[in-house]
């Protein structure tokens, strides 16, 4: 058997070489299909990997608490922020202070997002995020300060730290320390400007470049003194203690919420779960659409193989008359179509990554390399080769040797 595979591969090489143009075009058909799948999958897993990579980069000791219980219904697919966006958060300031009290917890910070347009003397910015939090966030999320300082316990209530892009949008410059802006009629003074991060996808789901960070007190003042906490970021002292710490967090909050588990504690990859689920379903849909082009490539293979079988009818007859069995003939043609499709797979895989990297220059993330994508590219091209090569191969094998030898070109 091994011999035959080598034999057929050699044979296929010569016959494909003799019809070079045809082979290249057919290979191209498969390559385009595989390339589009590879590009989509690599960019897709590039997105979903971002968050878990961030958490890892921060030391792997980050966990978050979010209100609501993760659900698997389809509603949460199209609206991953359902729990945070439209329902009243169940997390309270007491939860926050209780978490801070737990022994293994190094720091905890609330994420309270509110809306509102920010007005400076020269501009009004509406597409922005207003984040009310505590000084601990800077350390947990590793926010880089460009100028000035982050909010801390001694700074005035009406001070703010703004993102680089927001600074430019508001004041036309990224040197805006001491400038003031108005938010819901209240005046805030800029005491710090963040460095440009270019990272809108992170475990806080906040684009810090366009965010104004104010103290939790100021945030509460817009909500009749009640903290609307959408997320609590927790950093454990040791990454190894994280699981134990989170158990403790779970126990305390359940007690605080009178035994109702209306929140979820997330660590590691789970943090990006709502995002990943949304993207992965989007990506699967895109992949399915992209595989249509792979089917087109497969039809190309079948077409060219049928032509090849018809052209080589005499050869088939001859091979049979000198001792080739039907399965020999099947393998001969199947190996040929497999070579086309696997070549297409290899070129498509490479081409797909080139495409993905070109696309990623316009995006904030890079395509990911995983063995799953390589396996998908290899597997689909193999599948296409078999699926679309088997019929021509069987047709070749079923040819009657006498008829075939009578066949003229």
């Amino acid at each position: 058997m091994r011999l035959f595979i080598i034999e057929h591969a050699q044979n296929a090489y010569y016959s494909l070489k003799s019809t070079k143009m045809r082979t290249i075009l057919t290979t191209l058909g498969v390559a385009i299909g595989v390339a589009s799948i590879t590009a989509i999958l690599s960019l897709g897993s590039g997105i979903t990997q971002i968050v878990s990579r961030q958490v890892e980069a921060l030391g792997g000791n980050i966990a978050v608490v979010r209100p609501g219980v993760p659900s698997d219904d389809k509603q949460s697919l199209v609206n991953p922020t359902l729990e945070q966006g439209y329902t009243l958060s169940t997390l309270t300031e007491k939860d926050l202070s209780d978490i801070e009290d737990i022994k293994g917890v190094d720091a905890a910070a609330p994420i309270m997002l509110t809306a509102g347009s920010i007005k400076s003397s020269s501009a009004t910015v509406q597409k922005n995020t207003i984040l009310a939090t505590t000084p601990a966030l800077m350390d947990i999320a590793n926010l880089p300060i460009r100028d000035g300082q982050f909010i801390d316990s001694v700074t005035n209530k009406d001070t703010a730290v703004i993102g680089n892009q927001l600074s430019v949008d508001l004041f036309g410059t990224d040197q805006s320390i001491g400038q003031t802006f108005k938010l819901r009629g209240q005046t805030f003074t800029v005491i710090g400007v963040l460095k440009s991060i270019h990272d809108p996808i992170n475990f806080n789901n906040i684009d810090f470049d366009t965010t104004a960070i104010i103290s939790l007190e100021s945030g509460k003042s817009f909500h009749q003194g009640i903290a609307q906490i959408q997320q609590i970021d927790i950093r454990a002292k040791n990454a190894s203690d994280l699981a134990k710490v989170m158990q403790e967090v779970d126990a305390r909050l359940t007690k605080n919420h009178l035994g109702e588990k209306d929140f979820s504690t997330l660590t590691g990859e789970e943090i990006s779960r709502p995002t990943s689920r949304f993207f992965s379903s989007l990506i699967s849909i895109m992949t399915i659409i992209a595989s249509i082009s792979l089917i087109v490539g497969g039809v190309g293979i079948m077409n060219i193989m049928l032509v090849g079988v018809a052209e080589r009818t005499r050869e088939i007859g001859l091979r049979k008359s000198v001792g080739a069995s039907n399965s020999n003939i099947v393998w001969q043609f199947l190996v040929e179509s497999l070579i086309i499709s696997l070549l297409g797979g290899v070129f498509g895989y490479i081409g797909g990554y080139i495409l993905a990297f070109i696309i990623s220059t316009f995006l904030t993330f890079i395509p990911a390399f995983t063995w799953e994508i390589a396996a998908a590219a290899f597997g689909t091209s193999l599948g296409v080769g078999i699926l679309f090569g088997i019929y021509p191969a069987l047709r070749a094998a079923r040819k009657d040797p006498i008829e075939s030898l009578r066949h003229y070109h």
Partner: protein
Amino acid sequence: MSKKKLTPVIELRGLTKRYGVGDAQHNALDNIDLTIEKGEFITIMGPSGCGKTTLLNILGLLDRSNEGEYFLDGTSIERFSGARHARIRSRQIGIVFQHFNLINRLNVIENVALPLTYNGMFRTKRLKQASSVLKNFHLSEREYYMPWQLSGGQMQRVAIARALVNNPSIILADEPTGNLDSKASHVIMEELSDIHKRGNTIIMVTHNPDLTTYASRVIHMLDGRVASDTKIPVEPKKSAEKIPLGMHHKEEKNKKPAKKRKTTKAKKK
């Protein structure tokens, strides 16, 4: 040669092949009994449609009969599977066609080595064996030519070399000179006759009555039956010292007769 006449190479009993259905049905072969001994050179003659090609196809296992039995080397092979037939074709039968049927993509030596592929032989060994057969046909210098670079006569010699390469029990030739001019035909017939003298069994279908002079037995067919079967006495030549072609890879010392042939050939030219 001592073991000859122990079992006939081919034995046919009541072989019948029908084509068509209903009123259109006719017997291409009608109850044929035939015994072919080892070392015979048989020409099958007859008008078009008498069933001689059908007979050859059945002998070559390219076709199956409807009735009757076919013993090849003493084994009944009628009821074997297609894969088993393929194996027998690759090991015991060599076929020479009117249209040569060389694969244009492959060079001469690879064409000759082709049947060995299906014996499961490795490439190097295959090419070596093909090369030694080609030597007997004075085609050593043409080993790496492509088929279209050869003359018709040369192509047919390559095809005969291919038929011999796996040392078959029988060689079937369907009008091997049908596509050649008389000079090339003569060369090919000399080759076949030489192979025969080395002890190979040859069954040849032809239209050309002149070619029967080379044969040891002439069978005339008519309407699917054997009309006449004439044995021509063979002059007992020095064939004893010769070894059947195709055996050379088993016995190395057969280089001698090959050389001898070369000289006679040179004289002829």
